């Protein structure tokens, strides 16, 4: 069963890693990805990023993505944590962990989880710049292409 969390607070990478692996002797590798807020966006200096989401849908969407990863790679454990609210430059936004018997599965599942999360989970980023300007981030074609790599033949 995956651990899926949406929260305002920062997450503790070490504690999440320990929780995923505690007492396990069947895991051979754990892949991880952490996304963080970059200060420069399109050459402009960010004051903060605000993450909005669709609460009634988010947890279910993340659970569905995690279940798909567990099914495809026979994972031994999986954690997805996504923050919402106001985040300043340098702050962590998202954590993905995937544990498997072998490294190929752990690393592939990690890539899959973050690619699908970016295109299939209802989060929206608003950038607030140091000069007072603000705008909603537009979806990137590269993210759609990255997610499409994981599509399975019917």
């Amino acid at each position, binding site marked *: 069963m995956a651990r899926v969390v949406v929260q305002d607070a920062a997450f503790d990478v070490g504690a999440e890693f320990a929780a995923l692996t505690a007492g396990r002797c069947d895991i051979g590798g754990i892949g991880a990805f952490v996304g963080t807020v970059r200060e420069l966006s399109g050459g402009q200096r960010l004051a903060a990023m605000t993450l909005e989401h669709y609460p009634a*849908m988010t947890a279910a969407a993340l659970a569905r993505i995690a279940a798909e990863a567990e099914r495809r790679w026979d994972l031994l454990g999986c954690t997805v944590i996504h923050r919402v609210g106001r985040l300043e430059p340098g702050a962590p936004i998202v954590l993905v962990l995937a544990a498997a018997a072998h490294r190929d599965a752990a690393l592939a599942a990690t890539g899959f989880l973050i690619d699908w999360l970016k295109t299939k989970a209802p989060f929206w980023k608003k950038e607030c710049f140091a000069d007072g300007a603000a705008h909603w981030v537009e979806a*990137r074609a590269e993210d759609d292409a990255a997610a499409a790599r994981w599509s399975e033949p019917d």
Partner: protein
Amino acid sequence: MGAASLHILYFAWLRERLGLGEESLALPEDVDSVGTLIAWLRRRDDRFGAIFAEGRLVRCAVNQEFAGPDTPLADGDEVAFFPPVTGG
């Protein structure tokens, strides 16, 4: 027996543009799908016309699942409109 109704949610720039996060709507007689709901909203109010203008990328979910124009709507459904997602 109460009138059939929909609960509609708006997110991100749609919410800000409309000045509206959610609303409840008595289901109009000629609305039976996401596509017909969008057509009805556009007729109701110019602001919706701008939001659902040709080529605007607006996504939809019905009862918390991604939906398309043909997705049917029924009494009590929760419909959400939002831009393409940008989390992660």
